[in-house]
């Protein structure tokens, strides 16, 4: 029983780690440019397809991954910002949110048109090792390790480098940052690029487990948003905590709860948090004022 649960915990943490990466990107976009990216989940699917296509075209896997990253930086980072967010944001958040929903539909239907409705295998790390009575997948270990490294690197970048600190200042208060002489526009662009890199990493880590299918983005995006809310929405640390918690809870609920309602787990968690702890796990309560 204990070992079964430990097994669930580890694979839950692995899933949660990828949620955390996607949620972190989500939070960064929200902080720096008030963009709620409803297409974030589909942003994970796209690089996965790009890597599969490049790999199938004969590129060795590492090169294909690099190609996928570059494509993501161009399309999901710079392209998304310049073509959609910049022109839409001045109309307010609602049109942008709806446009992002439409973008999600376009991405899903587009990838269905190109790749069809079947699920593609994605190369991962095969095998595993025995730890007592427990069999541990290498894939889970690699996922957790890569996510931890990425998160630590991100934190170091944000807190130790000049650019990172400028980004944080921009996130906290863009107008003050502007006055302080921080190149706010460049910092915002950097956030979009960072988000593109995070979703590509998440795509590489999660795809071997989930396979690659055109509509995977819906559930990943939802999970990422739930993770961001659970963690307190406004902070990177919260997004990570929320992602891990969600991954673990989902895994346990799927094993011990009714399987048909697996998709409901993030919802119930989300609604519960919004009603009873809207500031999230790590957030502090803010008062509604004028």
């Amino acid at each position: 029983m204990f070992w079964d649960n430990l097994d669930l915990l580890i694979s839950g943490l692995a899933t949660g780690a990828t949620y955390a990466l996607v949620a972190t990107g989500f939070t960064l976009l929200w902080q720096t440019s008030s963009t709620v990216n409803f297409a974030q989940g589909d942003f994970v699917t796209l690089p996965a397809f790009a890597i599969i296509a490049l790999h199938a075209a004969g590129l060795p896997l590492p090169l294909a991954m690099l190609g996928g990253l570059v494509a993501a930086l161009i399309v999901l980072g710079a392209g998304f910002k310049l073509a959609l967010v910049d022109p839409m944001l001045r109309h307010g958040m609602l049109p942008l949110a709806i446009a992002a929903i439409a973008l999600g539909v376009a991405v899903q239907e587009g990838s269905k048109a190109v790749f069809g409705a079947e699920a593609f295998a994605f190369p991962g790390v095969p095998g595993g090792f025995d730890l007592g009575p427990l069999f541990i997948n290498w894939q889970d270990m690699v996922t957790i390790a890569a996510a931890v490294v990425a998160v630590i690197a991100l934190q170091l970048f944000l807190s130790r480098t000049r650019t990172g600190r400028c980004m944080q200042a921009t996130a906290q208060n863009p107008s003050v940052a502007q006055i302080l002489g921080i190149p706010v526009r460049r910092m915002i662009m950097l956030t979009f690029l960072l988000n593109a890199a995070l979703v590509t990493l998440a795509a590489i880590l999660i795809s071997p487990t989930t396979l690659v299918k055109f509509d995977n983005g819906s559930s990943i995006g939802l999970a990422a948003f739930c993770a961001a809310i659970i963690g307190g929405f406004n902070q990177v640390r919260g997004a990570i905590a929320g992602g891990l918690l969600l991954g673990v809870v989902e895994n346990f609920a799927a094993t011990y709860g009714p399987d048909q309602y697996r998709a409901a787990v993030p919802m119930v968690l989300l609604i519960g948090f919004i009603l009873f702890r809207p500031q999230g796990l790590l957030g502090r309560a803010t008062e509604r004022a004028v």
Partner: protein
Amino acid sequence: MTPVLEARGLHKSFDGVHAVNGISFAVHAGEILGVIGPNGSGKSTLFNCLLGQLRPSAGTVLLDGTDVTGMRPCDLNRLGVSRTFQLLQVFPQLTVRENLVLAGQEHVGTRIGRLFGRPDAGLTAAAERMIALFDLGHLAAARAGGLSYGQQKLLDAAMAFMAGPRLVLLDEPAGGVNLTMLGNLRERLRDMNRQAGATFVVIEHNMDFVMSLCSRVICIAEGAVIADGPPDAVRNDPTVIEAYLGH
């Protein structure tokens, strides 16, 4: 005589910072009370505590001797308390006339009655009177969002008077308003005070405006009342001068 509005030992702290730190004062019927103080002294927080926008950490707010601490702003408004805001707060997509009707409609009849009653809740005439009073006649059908800053400020004040309130709290009504309009605004406030017997509490930085309008002034510094009395006495109070110069 029971004061119209009384604050007793109001406290409000944010993360350990005491924005309002034990404020007590009373406003009597017919008074125009000025509230002055350096920037960041807690004036706006005080207003938000008085008006239910923020819940005070400690202390009570009494309206006609009844405890209304933490009551919702909409319920307070229906008891005859209205306010203006420091930053512009009109409804930009509605016309000037519609802004005024909106400001009065919740005081007319019941909610269900309003759904089946007249579209303007019978307030068009009252709105037109208010429009004339505040010199906004040529703008009655214009979208509020298209008005100049000063005009919006006047509209904002007019909205606060629409429901015939007994007590009006004005947060920097003169800020950003040009001299002509300022005179207009002062006269309107005086009219309302004398004819309708409305009581005012006014936060203001413009000293001339405060001195010429108010019957009594309190000065707030670092979340506490440091002076309370007639305008001239407060202006010349050494602690008040100290508080301003110290900043």
